């Protein structure tokens, strides 16, 4: 229940953020913003905002990579994100608290 007390769980409980964390947890490879936006139906600018918040809390780890867009010779910097082990602990705390309150 450590993450309920320090507020990390409440911040992750924001509906869009919770959806993003669940998606990153279930994915085997790191995902970039456009991919997350497409999968969840959340606006890419909102996805970036939520990733900033999640990264600040250490729930998500992001890095930039230069990849070549299809049909183009120019490289593009994409932000690749993946869930950290902390994400699993936070989600477990949330699930336990929901079960505990009988919601």
């Amino acid at each position, binding site marked *: 229940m450590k993450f309920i007390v320090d507020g990390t769980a409440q911040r992750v409980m924001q509906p869009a*953020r919770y959806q993003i964390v669940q998606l990153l947890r279930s994915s085997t490879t790191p995902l970039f913003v456009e991919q997350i936006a497409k999968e969840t139906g959340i606006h890419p*600018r909102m996805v*970036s*905002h939520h990733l900033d918040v999640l990264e600040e809390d250490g729930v998500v780890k992001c890095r930039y990579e230069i990849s070549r867009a299809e049909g183009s010779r120019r490289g593009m910097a994409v932000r690749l994100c993946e869930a950290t082990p902390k994400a699993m602990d936070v989600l477990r705390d949330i699930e336990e608290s929901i079960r505990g309150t009988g919601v």
Partner: protein
Amino acid sequence: MNGASRFLRQTGEYLYFTFRIRKWLLRSLVIMAVVPGIFLFELPIEVRRVFAYVFVSLMAAGVYAVANVYAGSAAQTVAVGLLSKKYRNKEYSTPAIEQLKKRMSLDNVKVLVTPNPVVKSAFTTPMRPRVYLPSAWLTEFPSGEILSIIGHELGHVETRRRFALEVAAAIAAVLAFSFLLAFRSIAIVVQVTEFAALVLALTYVSWRNERRADLVSARELGPEGLISVLQQLKTRVKRDEGSETHPPLSDRIRRLVKLLG
């Protein structure tokens, strides 16, 4: 909790009018005052009696329902002042907040965090330039979103004069309307109609004021933070239908999402 307060609380919960009902109560009061009200003297005595019963019942329900809401929102402002010794308000300042205040030329505004349990949401005091935040929000929302909330409240401070003018205009319009009504109706009908029309007009003005503050926050900091906060708050409300002071959260979110492009 003693018997009397338990009784009051239970009655309050049982006699809770949703915003939709409150709005229709007031609208029907205005419609009744205008349509049968102006022909009151020409109506037969039986009809006049029925009119009086219906009008008085609507009046009692309307006044009770609306007074309840305004008392609730006034309680926050009063509580932070009256209980400031029991619940110490602490000044909250970060470099980002100071930068925002400077950018908006609102350096004189104090941002305070209060542990007072009566305070359930952020608000601005009507006279002094102060922004209050419930202390629990500091852990519930990330720092970037807290800044967006403060941006919204600073928006209220920035557009305070415009809001005051709009309130004055609403009062003037209602008084003009009731002045015309006074020629054709009895005093109590005119007075009750004044009250009902004023609440309806102030709701309109207040909603505009909230949307303007949302725009100010979006202009200064981008709409992302505020959208996220409103989405989180939406999960906590039973009915998202707005109130006399605030538009529905879904409407505010929709307007801010449009700004994302």
